[in-house]
């Protein structure tokens, strides 16, 4: 089980690097807020329909912000070809995937934690709810699982970031649908067990695609 140390090293390194500049975090946070505010005007939200639409807006904001993070996570590794340094140093290359994915989860979660209070204020919804945090965590895990893998591929092409949303959004359709529905139910004050069917879908998505991405990473990271 010493292999897991490689993944941990990568996470620690990513967090340390990001804490120095806070570029990615800042961009993710600002982007998420912009999305929420633009939707507010675009959909002409009023107090009566805001609650219904709020979950959807939240997840769109998270998804776009997440993508910024995924792209940046590997764009950094392309500078000075650090990804090759990682490939040389890591015993098991799949651990690079685990490390990168966990790093993405950490950053996305940090951005989400900053967005939630503002979201609560703008839409007048209760966010101090562990059930909500669980739903958000499950959704974040799924997005990061696939996003990390697809970001490697996207960053290796001539078009770079542009191709990532085109691939990521169709794949995460089940996850987003479930996340929005579950979030809506939780914000309405329903018990977690009522959202069970959606949670199960999200968990299934997370497990299946984390596994697939873990296995597929080695094939994708090579030159």
């Amino acid at each position, binding site marked *: 089980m010493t292999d897991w140390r490689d993944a941990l090293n990568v996470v620690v390194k990513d967090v340390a690097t990001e804490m120095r500049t806070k570029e990615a975090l800042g961009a993710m946070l600002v982007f998420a807020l912009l999305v929420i505010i633009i939707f507010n005007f675009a959909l002409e939200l009023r107090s009566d329909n805001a609650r219904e639409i709020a979950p959807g807006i939240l997840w769109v904001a998270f998804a776009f912000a997440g993508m910024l993070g995924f792209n940046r996570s590997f764009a950094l590794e392309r500078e000075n070809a650090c990804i090759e*340094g990682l490939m*040389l*140093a890591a015993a098991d290359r799949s651990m690079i995937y685990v490390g990168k994915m966990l790093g993405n989860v950490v950053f996305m979660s940090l951005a989400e934690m900053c967005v939630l209070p503002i979201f609560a204020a703008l839409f007048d919804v209760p966010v101090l709810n562990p059930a909500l945090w669980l739903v958000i965590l499950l959704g974040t895990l799924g997005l990061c699982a696939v996003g990390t893998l697809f970001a490697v591929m996207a960053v290796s092409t001539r078009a770079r970031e542009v191709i990532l949303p085109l691939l990521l959004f169709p794949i995460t359709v089940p996850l987003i649908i479930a996340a929005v529905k579950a979030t809506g139910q939780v914000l309405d004050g329903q018990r977690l067990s009522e959202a069970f069917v959606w949670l199960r879908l999200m968990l299934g998505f997370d497990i299946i695609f984390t596994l697939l991405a873990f296995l597929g990473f080695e094939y994708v990271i090579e*030159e």
Partner: protein
Amino acid sequence: MNMSASVTSESKACYAVEVEGLSKNWGHTAVLRGVKLHVPYGSSVTILGPNGAGKTTLLRILATLSRPSGGRVRVDGLDLLRFDQSIRQRIGFVSHQTYLYGELSSFENLRFYGRMYRVPDLEQRVVELLEQFGLAEQRDNLARTLSRGMQQRLSLARALLHRPKILLWDEPYACLDQRAADALTGILRDLRMKGSTILMTTHDLERSVQATDQVALLVAGKIVYEACTQTLSREQLLATYLERTRSRT
């Protein structure tokens, strides 16, 4: 095909690097076509060749960064395709890309890679290497603030963290001024004396004669000439080089 007094004539049971019939294709182009190379332990070899000959590709394959299209490769006696994880522990690869994280300091860069390599007594080793390469003062400076020469030295330090038996070095002299290049040659000599096996690529003929014992000429994906640098003068090498490379243009 006769063998000269060169890398292949040593009758050792095992070579540090054994390459037989190595080929690498990039789509329609064959970059390497049946490369044959045997590097004994403790020797230092320069792979010379014009641009596009495949030198970097060859080194990257040996470093497990690239997969061969055909042929057989053994590094430190281990088959490349099956034991790539073990091979990585025994080689150090230095590329013209530095593999350094700009936002981490010299110390942190080395410490990160050292952890990945599971280097024992890591902190001590990092300090030792920083001293050895004259980077002790740059210890807490971010890697992106270092000069090109310093970055190159730091990158070399990174490759040596885990005390690899075999060092693979791609174009070490590129973009270096005279002083830095001389310092590098000194480092190479030190490593040779300590018994490391060194495989280097360059198109700088002069340096290759100074820095290593043997040269192999790679032209258009094949090794076409091998010799010892002791028995060869610079002029002879230059003449052979020009003759062999002219026929391919």
